[in-house]
């Protein structure tokens, strides 16, 4: 006879009270700092007037969402945003590959050196990264064009070409974040039992085979989680970097959601409108995450829930 397992919370509490206690501080902190202010979400549904406060401002429902969707450049800024994030998504495996490569290095000093060098770009500010991009892609005396000229090729316009905007944005981001992104994978790799690896080697596996059959499966859960979380950033492209890289000639590719929000939000003081756009973004992000999570669970049984 199968005894149905009822969710008896009183019993659970008695048994697991220590676990609940351990998660309590985090719950309290998050409740205070995130849930208490969360009433502010409704700014997106009201015509916010500071003098009336959030609760006192008129309810306008979906007015600002509709306005956003009807914005003539709506599809263009979504397309530009997605171009950047989807292109960036294709560089997702690079951090994993680099972590795997680093993990294989025998010489500890060399390994540490490469790691340190790869982490350093993370600390370089966006402003400097963009300055360097501008300097290196300069038509008359930039590094790339100088090399081209030395090889006998024509100088080309790089940063003023809208078609190059997405790659430049993404690859400069890769330079900045690749090394830092390996940290979590290296930590995961360091937890793989050496016995497993030795066993595989004894069975005659080559280095590549060990990576493929041992390393990768062991860090797969981490990879899946990172991918799911990454999908939540599909509409997030920061405005600071765009402002630094854009010019009149690449505007068609460089206007994204966040630059528009900045112009109407901080620039135009339209709290409700910018809140609505932000909420719109977030809803889509959540949908993406939940959707990806579903697929991930089906395929690999790893997920957020």
């Amino acid at each position, binding site marked *: 006879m199968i005894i149905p397992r009822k969710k008896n919370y009183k019993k659970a509490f008695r048994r697991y009270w220590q676990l609940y206690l351990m998660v309590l501080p*985090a719950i309290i902190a998050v409740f205070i700092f995130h849930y208490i202010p969360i009433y*502010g979400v409704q700014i997106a549904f009201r015509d916010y007037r500071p003098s009336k406060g959030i609760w006192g401002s008129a309810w306008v429902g979906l007015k600002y969402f509709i306005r956003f969707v009807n914005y003539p450049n709506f599809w263009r800024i979504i397309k530009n945003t997605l171009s950047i994030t989807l292109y960036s998504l294709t560089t997702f495996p690079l951090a994993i590959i680099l972590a795997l490569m680093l993990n294989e290095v025998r010489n500890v000093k060399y390994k540490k050196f490469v790691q340190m060098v*790869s982490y*350093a770009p993370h600390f370089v500010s966006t402003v400097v990264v963009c300055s360097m991009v501008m300097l290196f892609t300069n038509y008359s005396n930039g*590094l790339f064009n100088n090399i081209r000229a030395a090889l006998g090729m024509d100088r080309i316009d790089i940063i003023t070409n809208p078609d190059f905007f997405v790659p430049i944005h993404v690859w400069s981001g890769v330079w900045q974040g690749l090394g830092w992104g390996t940290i979590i994978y290296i930590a*995961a790799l360091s937890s793989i*039992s050496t016995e497993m690896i030795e066993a595989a080697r004894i069975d005659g596996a080559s280095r*590549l085979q060990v990576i493929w059959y041992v390393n990768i499966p062991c860090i797969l859960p*981490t990879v899946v989680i990172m991918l799911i979380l990454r999908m939540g950033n599909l509409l997030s492209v920061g405005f600071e970097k765009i402002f630094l890289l854009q010019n009149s000639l690449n505007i068609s590719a460089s206007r994204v959601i966040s630059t528009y929000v900045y112009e109407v939000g901080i620039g135009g003081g339209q709290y409700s409108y910018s809140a609505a756009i932000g909420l719109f973004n977030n809803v889509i*992000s959540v949908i993406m995450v939940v959707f990806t999570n579903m697929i991930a669970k089906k395929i690999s049984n790893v997920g957020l829930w």
Partner: protein
Amino acid sequence: MPKSRTDRIFDTINNLLLFLLTLAFIYPLYFIVIASVSEPYAVATGKVFYLPEGLSWDAYKNVFENKQIWVGYRNTIFYTVLGTVYNLILTIPAAYTLSKRKLPGRTIIMTFFFITMYFGGGMIPAFLLRKSLNLINTPWVLIINSGVSCWNLIVTRQFFENNIPDDLYEAAEIDGASELGMFFRIALPLSGSILAVMTLFYAVGHWNSYYSALLYVNKQKYYPLQLVLRNILISNQNTMATIDTLSIDADALAVAAQRAYIAEAMKYAVIFIASAPLLIAYPFVQKYFVKGVMTGSIKG
């Protein structure tokens, strides 16, 4: 295990590829170093490639002349240390709890945290809350600001789930260990690497932050380093815009013009000033990864 021939080929290719990659990383970093001590106009016109042009330490001098820098360093160290400890105390036990699949209510708690990743009240309610808690303009607002990063929480939880097999817990339970006991005696000792990673992530997060300070702190004595540097940089760039030129003497004008000129090189110098302590401290943290490896290998 003796190295086979394929092994050696693999190593050679691996090391070679890594070397090329390192060059790609290193050149821009090197460029930042030489740009920070070069003559700003040479940098701006692309004349700086391998060596500094017109060596000058003015950019650094300019930044360090500002006594605020030391206040900034002191504050940031304070915020980072206390803030990271606070974050870890909140995050690690919570992640451990959430890693127990059998725990009733796990999904609810997970969703509770997850929602905060994407939905928030915005800048205004956040400010009002901190004001009502009397946190504005105190050092505490920057320490308890972030609390728990849901992202870090998920990653840590994943680590606990993945790397510590259930049979270890089952064995300990039979021996009569409590949940807390298992956490301290089984999970923590085996989590060296994730603890190191989370410490790193939270610490660097605190170190690099300035936006919260911008909004919640207006007393200079509480400014973190990044805010001080950012102010110095921006205001140097804008020097000419804020001066009323008619009532000023030629010397002051020269000072102002010099400031705007140096601002270019200062951009690069600031990177070092801001991150040097971290880059120096990093190798000491790095050994915990190695430790993690040793404690991470599990018998059975």
